[in-house]
């Protein structure tokens, strides 16, 4: 498939982003910022009626790590949750027109 390269490139790029952010030294402030951003994105997904259960689960995991004082882990999870929420927003937005391609007619 011609889009194979493009697809895997995207996966790699996204994974790299997370790897880098996970390496960065985490503080409580970093976590709070990342968590707030993730929550905001998830809220937006909610407005579009398209939240993912995994976003909520990852947010909960982030909070749990933060409560245990593991801010590195918590920040990484919050960023992951934000990525998930953003993907769900993207999905909802693009499906606004794209659903028609699947329709039986």
């Amino acid at each position, binding site marked *: 498939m011609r*889009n194979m390269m*493009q*697809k895997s490139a*995207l*996966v790699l790029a*996204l*994974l790299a982003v*997370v790897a880098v952010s996970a390496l960065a030294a985490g503080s409580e402030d970093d976590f709070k910022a990342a968590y707030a951003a993730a929550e905001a994105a998830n809220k937006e997904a*909610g407005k579009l*009626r*398209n*939240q*993912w*259960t*995994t976003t*909520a689960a*990852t947010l909960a*995991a982030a909070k749990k790590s933060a409560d245990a004082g593991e801010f590195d*882990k918590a920040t*990484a*999870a919050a960023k*992951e949750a934000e*990525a*998930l929420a953003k*993907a*769900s927003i*993207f*999905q*909802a937005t*693009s*499906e606004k*027109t*794209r*659903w*028609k*391609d*699947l*329709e*039986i*007619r």
Partner: protein
Amino acid sequence: MKLRSAIYLASAALAFAALTLASTLPSGASDKVDPVADAKAFQKFFTDKFPKVKFEDFVNGPYSMNEDLYRQWQEKEQFPPYEFSLEMGKEMFSKPFKSGKSYEDCFPNKGIGIRQNYPYFDEKEGKVITLELALNRCREANGEPPFSYVKDEMAALTAYMAFTSRGKPMDIKIPNDPRALAAYENGKEYFYTRRGQFNFSCATCHVQSPGERIRAEILAPALGIVNAMPIYRSEWSGMGTTSRRFTTCNSQIRGVPMNPQDDEYRNVEYYLSYVSNGLPISGPGARP
């Protein structure tokens, strides 16, 4: 945790990539809403895809798709597991509320043999009214607290009402009201819209892959799927309503479900029921 995150992320990224690429495809959609043509095309799609399945058999879900399953189902139907729920519904239905009235007073023909007309579009309210919603409204109008939409009493009541309509063809009408057409179209959109982290729409499973296995389950065709509601699912070890089916489908694809009887669910039930017009009511049903 590390591995799990990587998997989540990879799947999110994949969904992303797939979406980005696919969204550049030309859209063949026309904008006119034509329910009559929709229903015709919808039914033709399934009868063409499964030429061996008799039209009225589509209401039997996965059992219509697989012989070994069909036999197990017939064995179960000798003394079906929904029997207790059905009896409970029958008893409840004519029992008076504190107000002195009963469910019978809330429905045309005392509620007997009318299930095939639900959901309907209420032109006064401008919204779709499902059977489950009508039942809870009946309770509230008589000073009774509403039931949970997903199982137990609600399943028992709808099981009884479906039973009294068994064999009657689904008969959903779309009045000449732009709001009714909009509700129908919105239901259709919900049905075909991919959601959840798995990036699945209702159609992904129930239009593109009925008869195939997803994990361990054999998927039911969308055609006639609502005609069998409510259902006793062995997986649930109990009864579930249309609301339960919608919400669990959504969570299975890792989407956060709406609340039962939210507009989207009412509309998708309206759409699905309309395109199943002509197929007999077979509820209550039994499912794996």
